[in-house]
């Protein structure tokens, strides 16, 4: 049996961040991932905010940045667009487009350099408690074995099985799970190649469609839908979007990505005896954009620090580690509140309402307008905006 202080299950950005910070703070850390290659396949549109990376102390590296963005283009169902300059209006998940396959490996390397051990192609299959320790059963090739740990950091993504093994409610209801499909495409002809593009309305019921440029004529072209609002699959919606969008008339796919994105907000209970939940598994995803890289990594950093402290203090019950929940509330969950409200408002709009809002902003000079003025203007064309957004911005 392997014996460690902290076992991190899942080597995405949140898991790697947790492993790194637990190791930096003196814990003996093992991180396992079921896949043979960390970061592959990507399940992500790859947008990340510069500010988010900066706050995590991660230096931008040309080996995992494919594109630096200057703004956002938002498109209503009839094709009317509104372009926001990144310098003028701060938007989440705007800044860089990553190469996740490289980024995720680099984050795992940071964890290893901090002292964490890593095992790939190693699947956690169950969890039990023995005294004040946890025993995780695992499989690597034909080898079945057990890992004893003081603390488990569950970073197993939208599947979020590990937290549930520990008695936490980490599962996601279908109404909170965006079902996503994306092509990485070449020959994409974007109107604004330096902007990330969002398309709203019935093109993606319950979500939005996106085109995120990756440099040259490459882009991630995808969408997320709520399957409670449409009979079609995410993939069927994607094929229609690609057929109808002007930018993709000559585009060809070089990759297909699919997956779920939990957008219901951070789960209430993040801590059990011996267990902390991080990243997508904990719902650390911006409910409006679906972006979760920096929020998951922030949760990971906090989890790593709390876990290492618990090891030092020799106290890892839920009560001993309750600080984790409080810190995640302050650093991650609180910032999601206004995005959750904005999403609710956005999803309440019909295609016609979205078109009329986009029309109303045609003559707006965003260089001289601030957020509260945007909301004021919005309320003129869409009175329910006052009810849903008025107090937030």
């Amino acid at each position, binding site marked *: 049996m392997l014996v460690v202080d902290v076992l991190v299950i899942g080597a995405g950005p949140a898991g790697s961040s947790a492993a790194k910070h637990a190791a930096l703070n003196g814990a003996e850390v093992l991180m396992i991932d079921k896949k043979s290659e960390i970061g592959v396949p990507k399940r992500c549109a790859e947008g990340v905010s510069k500010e988010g990376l900066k706050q995590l102390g991660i230096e931008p590296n040309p080996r995992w940045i494919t594109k630096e963005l200057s703004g956002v283009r938002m498109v209503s169902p009839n094709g009317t667009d509104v372009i926001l300059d990144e310098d003028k209006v701060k938007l989440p998940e705007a800044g860089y487009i990553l190469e996740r396959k490289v980024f995720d490996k680099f984050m795992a390397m940071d964890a290893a350099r901090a002292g964490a051990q890593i095992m790939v192609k190693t699947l956690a299959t169950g969890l039990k408690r023995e005294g004040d320790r946890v025993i995780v059963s695992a499989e690597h090739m034909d080898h079945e074995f057990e890992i004893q740990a003081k603390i488990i950091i569950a970073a197993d993504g939208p*599947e979020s099985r590990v937290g549930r093994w520990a008695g936490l409610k980490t599962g996601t*209801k*279908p109404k909170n*799970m965006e*079902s996503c499909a994306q092509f990485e495409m070449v020959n994409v002809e974007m109107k604004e190649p330096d902007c990330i593009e969002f398309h709203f309305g019935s093109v993606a019921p319950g979500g939005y469609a996106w085109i995120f440029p990756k440099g040259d004529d490459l882009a991630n072209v995808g969408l997320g839908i709520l399957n409670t609002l449409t009979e079609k*699959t995410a*993939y069927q919606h994607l094929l229609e979007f690609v057929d109808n969008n002007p930018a993709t008339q000559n585009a060809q796919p070089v990759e*297909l990505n*699919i*997956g779920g994105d939990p957008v219901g907000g951070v789960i209430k209970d993040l801590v059990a005896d011996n267990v902390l939940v991080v990243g997508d598994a904990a719902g650390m995803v911006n409910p409006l954009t679906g972006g979760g890289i920096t929020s998951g990594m922030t949760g990971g950093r906090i989890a790593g620090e709390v876990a290492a402290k618990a090891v030092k203090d020799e106290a890892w019950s839920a009560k001993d580690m309750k600080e984790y929940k409080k810190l995640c509330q302050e650093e991650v969950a609180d910032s999601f509140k206004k995005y959750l409200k904005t999403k609710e408002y956005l999803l309440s709009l019909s295609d016609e309402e979205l078109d009329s809002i986009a029309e109303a902003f045609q003559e707006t000079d965003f260089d001289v307008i601030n957020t509260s003025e945007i909301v004021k203007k919005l309320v003129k064309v869409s009175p329910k905006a006052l009810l849903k957004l008025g107090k937030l911005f």
Partner: protein
Amino acid sequence: MIVKEWCMYCGECAGVCPRNLIEVRELGLRFNEEGCKDCQICIQICPVDALEK
């Protein structure tokens, strides 16, 4: 549960399974059929229609 050969093992089904019965492997899905109450949420949410009862 029948897993079609175009399944990409994304694990979205596992995330919404209310009973946590789906094990997602690198290249495979395993269902704990014994605990299944036939809610079919996994079938409905699959982005590529790869599950069939």
